[in-house]
């Protein structure tokens, strides 16, 4: 019986092969073995959402998912989603509304918010609050985070996109 397993998965568009311990959860694998530091670890109990990543197109808690479970699957982190522009208007909006302070929760917040915008494009402010209550912001920036997400819902509903605020910086 070997406790190490050979796995292969696609991470941010690239095929990755590795040999890892079964007990290693996905975010430890991403951070330690692949040096992707976007997904963070807070509680490792599923409560805080700092570890949020996407697997096969859905957000999950990276601390409650083993790297071996991701064998054969497609994994996306904030790094990959930043590069391909999926999060661009949300990121713009977070900047515009000053929705991050230390930034520790931001990668999880962005991924959770992106899934809300995709699944519930007509979400109300109240529904935005409910949805992101699964992600802890230790700097307690909720008000501006909600503002930022609502602004993206509004502009998308009008068929527009936010103009970059940092283009000239």
């Amino acid at each position, binding site marked *: 019986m070997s406790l190490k397993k050979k796995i292969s998965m696609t991470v941010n568009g690239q095929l990755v092969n590795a040999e890892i311990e079964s007990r290693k959860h996905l975010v430890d694998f991403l951070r330690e073995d692949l040096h992707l530091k976007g997904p963070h670890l807070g509680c490792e109990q599923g409560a805080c959402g700092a570890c949020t990543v996407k697997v096969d197109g859905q957000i999950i808690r990276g601390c409650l998912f083993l790297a071996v479970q991701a064998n054969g699957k497609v994994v996306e982190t904030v790094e990959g989603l930043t590069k391909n522009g999926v999060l661009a208007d949300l990121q713009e909006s977070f900047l515009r509304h000053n929705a991050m302070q230390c930034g520790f929760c931001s990668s999880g917040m962005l991924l959770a918010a992106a899934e809300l915008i995709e699944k519930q494009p007509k979400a109300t402010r109240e529904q935005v609050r*409910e949805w992101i209550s699964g992600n802890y912001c230790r700097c307690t920036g909720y008000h501006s985070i909600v503002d930022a997400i609502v602004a993206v819902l509004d502009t998308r509903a009008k068929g527009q996109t936010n103009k970059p605020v940092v283009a000239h910086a």
Partner: protein
Amino acid sequence: MKSAAFDYVKPKVLQEALSLLEQGGDDARLIAGGQTLLATLNMRLSEPSVLIDITDLKELQGITVVGDQLRIGALVTHTEIEDSELVAKHAPLLKAAAPHIAHRAIRNLGTWGGSLAYGDPAAEWPACSLTLQATMIIHGPAGERRISAKDFFIDLYTTSLEPDEILVATEIPLANKQEVFYFHELARRHGDYAVAGLAAVAQKQDDVLNHCAFTFFSIGATPVMATKAQDLVNGQKLNDELIAKAVATARDEIEAIADITNSAEAKQHLIGVLLERGLKQMVA
């Protein structure tokens, strides 16, 4: 915290999973969504030596209508239930309850079967399965057996599942046109476990409710039905007087148990608050 070391296997068919479970004995643990199991392993509350990942097993997947029953595979996730049109049509109580389970990232992985097998008295699915008279379909070394939800939840985190058995699916009678339901939970924050909750269904004709099923959760060691209150309401014209009687009866027949933050008295009170709101909404 990190979990202790363990081995991991992913069988392709049910029979293989059953033999692995038998071989593994006490040291083996099934993993479905892992949303409860991995949290307990991370905290080292449990140290199994092998995890058997059942997520490839076809028999445990999918939502289908089989005759007059809605069959929900054990591996169906909370999100799939939340988004399913079949569920919305044939078991609307489940659709209403799903968004109350944790948050989307957890609902995307956590499963119907995992929740039922874990038997948490504060969880939504055990209570809903009791209310909807679900039948649990279980496979073990001796083949298939079926057991009603009523006989499935035995005690705190204890079901009638044997350690060498796998919950494969459940069947729920399809809702008909007269069916009305009420689902509500009082929680400190959306997504948290309820302080107290009620999953109720009935057949409505004008202002009369029949075949009432009222199940409270986060109240006792298992989900609990208010059978006396149900009998009192069944077939009677529902007015303020009857509602008050039903509330008093439910408070009387159920003995609430305190949790870390809420006293038994508070929960006892909430039983009545929930039932009153539920009856008024169902008859409205």
